[in-house]
């Protein structure tokens, strides 16, 4: 315990020097901005800013770059809530209820609760990293391909619960998402699949394109249907900050989201993406009136946002304790460490305590800064909604196109974006929901790849999934989830399930 505090003291000593504070602030501010802009993600920003950090001390550089990463997590929720444009998969969940809240004139409350939830989750996750990084690494190592496959199956069973309407339609959407995820090179043979010989499909679709197309631009199309009295949000903006009742409603979702997101964030291969989906499902399940979800339930914003930020922080654990990056942003952090002459690996924690603890301490300071940056910004963001829609929609289209283009600098991506937008609009017209599709897309690829890895490792025996205790546990949860989703509807008569067909 004494070690813990003395280490944190060392870390704070490093993190609160004027230079590091300033860099942390710059990182958080930049992160918030790129998070708000659809498509422009932390990866591009960190890659471009890397050279600027060459002159800095390694720890200062890492503090700034990490600030961009978790700052982007904060910023990403802003465009989902206000405009229904999720810039990344985690923000898809926030858009579900966050944007509905904005339509009801509660944009400020939604933004406020997401900032508060993120801050709380970030604080807890920082303490967890400081206190338990070592033991948690061991947990991450238990997760092999078999466990990961079962986790993905569980994740897909969440998707059924995610849906508002028909279970059958939700399942259909999940399957379409999974199919879309198979575009691109096959993991075990390198063969291109479903590309029809087109170069621009050879690396598959990007989840940001799917999010922006199916949600963002499709939403624009829908809004344009009634041009006459078109407003994104009613004139009433309402309060800017959540009141006591809203906070009370959000406490438990924030707590649960933090725990779920924190655990999933540690897992290899970007487990963090599951966090918000898991949290949303859990909240919907626990809610006394699940029908509120999808219509602006504050729990549906508070939980996933906390899960998202907790996962963003705990995904630093494998990087810091093993030198193994769990996702693309962390891989870039490895590159940054290398460029600063640090060999990322298990020795960083022991041989460079200043760097390790300084970075950990800066994360907490960064979260505090983000709260300070974001709360006053809410007023400005909400004012954005008063911009007449005939101007707004042009801006949305332009930003989405630039954002998508900047991902790979490939004009084909902009065409894909528009095709997806038309598809998204059609789907909504026929009451198919895009959220399960997105989840199917995100999980499909990981599920397939882990299935194949697990089967190669088990020499072809599918028993591996039930022989391994963690794996079988996850599968049991998945089956229970599905039963919970389907049974009540069957009991209530066929109409509830099939009436829409």
């Amino acid at each position, binding site marked *: 315990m004494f070690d813990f505090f003395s280490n944190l003291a060392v870390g704070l000593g490093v993190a609160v020097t004027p230079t590091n504070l300033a860099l942390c602030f710059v990182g958080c501010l930049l992160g918030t901005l790129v998070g708000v802009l659809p498509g422009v993600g932390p990866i591009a920003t960190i890659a*471009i800013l890397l050279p600027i950090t060459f002159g800095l001390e390694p720890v200062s550089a890492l503090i700034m770059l990490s600030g961009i990463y978790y700052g982007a997590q904060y910023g990403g929720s802003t465009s989902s809530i206000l405009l229904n444009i999720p810039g990344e998969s985690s923000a898809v969940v926030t858009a579900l209820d966050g944007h509905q809240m904005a339509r009801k004139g509660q944009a400020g409350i939604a933004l406020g609760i997401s900032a508060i939830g993120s801050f709380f989750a970030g604080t807890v996750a920082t303490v967890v990293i400081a206190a338990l990084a070592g033991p948690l690494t061991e947990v991450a190592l238990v997760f092999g391909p078999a466990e990961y496959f079962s986790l993905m199956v569980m994740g897909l069973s969440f998707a059924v619960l995610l849906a508002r309407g028909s279970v059958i339609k939700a399942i259909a959407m999940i399957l379409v998402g999974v199919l879309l995820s198979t575009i691109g090179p096959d993991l*075990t043979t390198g063969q291109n699949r479903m590309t029809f010989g087109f170069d621009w499909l050879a690396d598959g679709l990007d989840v940001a394109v799917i999010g922006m197309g199916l949600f963002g631009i499709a939403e624009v199309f829908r809004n344009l249907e009634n041009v006459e009295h078109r407003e994104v949000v009613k004139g009433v903006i309402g309060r800017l900050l959540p009141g006591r009742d809203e906070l009370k409603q959000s406490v438990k979702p924030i707590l649960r989201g933090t725990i779920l997101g924190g655990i999933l964030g540690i897992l290899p291969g970007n487990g963090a993406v599951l966090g918000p989906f898991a949290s949303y499902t859990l909240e919907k399940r626990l809610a006394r009136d699940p029908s509120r979800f999808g219509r602006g339930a504050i729990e549906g914003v508070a939980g996933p946002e906390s899960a998202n930020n907790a996962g963003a922080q705990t995904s630093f654990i494998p990087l810091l304790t093993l030198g193994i990056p769990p996702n693309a942003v962390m*891989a870039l952090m490895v590159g940054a460490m290398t460029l600063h002459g640090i*060999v990322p690996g298990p020795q960083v924690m022991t041989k460079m305590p200043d760097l390790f603890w300084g970075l950990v301490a800066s994360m907490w300071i960064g979260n505090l800064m983000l709260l300070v940056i974001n709360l006053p910004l809410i007023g400005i963001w909400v004012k954005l909604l008063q911009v007449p829609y005939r101007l707004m929609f042009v801006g949305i289209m332009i930003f989405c196109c630039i954002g998508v283009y*900047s991902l790979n*600098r490939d004009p084909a991506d902009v065409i894909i974006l528009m095709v997806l937008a038309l598809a998204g609009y059609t789907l909504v017209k026929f009451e198919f929901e895009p959220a399960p599709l997105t989840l199917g897309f995100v999980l499909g690829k990981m599920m397939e790849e882990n299935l194949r*890895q697990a089967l190669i490792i088990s020499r072809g025996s599918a028993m591996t999934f039930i022989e391994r205790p963690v794996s079988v546990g996850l599968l049991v949860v998945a089956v229970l989830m599905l039963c919970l989703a389907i049974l009540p509807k069957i009991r209530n008569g066929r109409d509830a399930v099939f009436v829409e067909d």
Partner: protein
Amino acid sequence: MPNLSRKVAVRLGLAALSLALVGTTSVRAAEDVSKYPSKRINIVVGFAAGGFADTLARLIGQKLQDKWGQTVVIDNRAGAGGNTAAKYVAGVEPDAYTILATTTAIAINETLYKQRDYKLDELTAVAMPASSAESLATHPSKPGNLKDFLAWAKDREITYGTAGVGSGSHIAAEYFFKVLAKVKANHVPFRGGALSVQAAVGNQIDTVASSFGSAPQIVEGKLAGLAVAGTERSVAMPKVPTYEEGGFKGFVAESWVGFFLPSKTDPKIVDKLNGAINDIINDPQTKQYLTGLGYQLKTRSTAESEKYLLSEVDNWGKMVKATGVTVE
């Protein structure tokens, strides 16, 4: 691909992020060697930001910028195992303002890929300054030296993880198990070397093949190093013997990062860039820093670089053919 619109597009993308890089409108003019470089240089990296090629390209790019006073921009164009970037640079104007940075993949792909949209002779090798030998490592609970490990592996089907199908690690390990050691081993591809190393540390797979990704884990005892495929031991993990020491004579497989220019580039400019990169590598401070990161360093003239490239195409081609791996 219309190159001009590509270039403009890159600038737009960067400018949209409003970051320090101000694109200068380029005036086309025949370049005099003594005046090179007179404008911004792009280094096109064949792989995503954060990897082996990217890291070295950024380092060299930074030093070139310091040396020449011209901005050097890193442009990551990942895709098709490095072929996307190679195809792009093979088609640009040969003015040496667009440099390709890629890995051993360019040598492997000559044999591995049935179809590529460029020819290797459209590119000329400038320098391959840094390399790292392919290695095998296993979980500490398994036999920790090559001989015992192979004996243990004899009566079972073992699994080995790599950064992916067609990677140098995959080809070298497949060649070693199938052709040299004659042990039945199944390939478990991962998306990137890091995840394969994690699976080995977690004892999910029997062994991991990687070029230098497992070095920190080996040094810290989280993994046991079995062998490195270098002519000598690796500076990053000096305790791990070479395959040669383990009785597999002549088995050498090294992953390197190289810089390339379109083959129509003025040879004098190629030499100038080669000299600049060699000077950077020979600088004692840089040398110490790169060696500390675990890279083996070597400076070559342009002629030697080109020769080395062809010998690598042969060496990897032999392994690819012997293992029968292909990618369409």
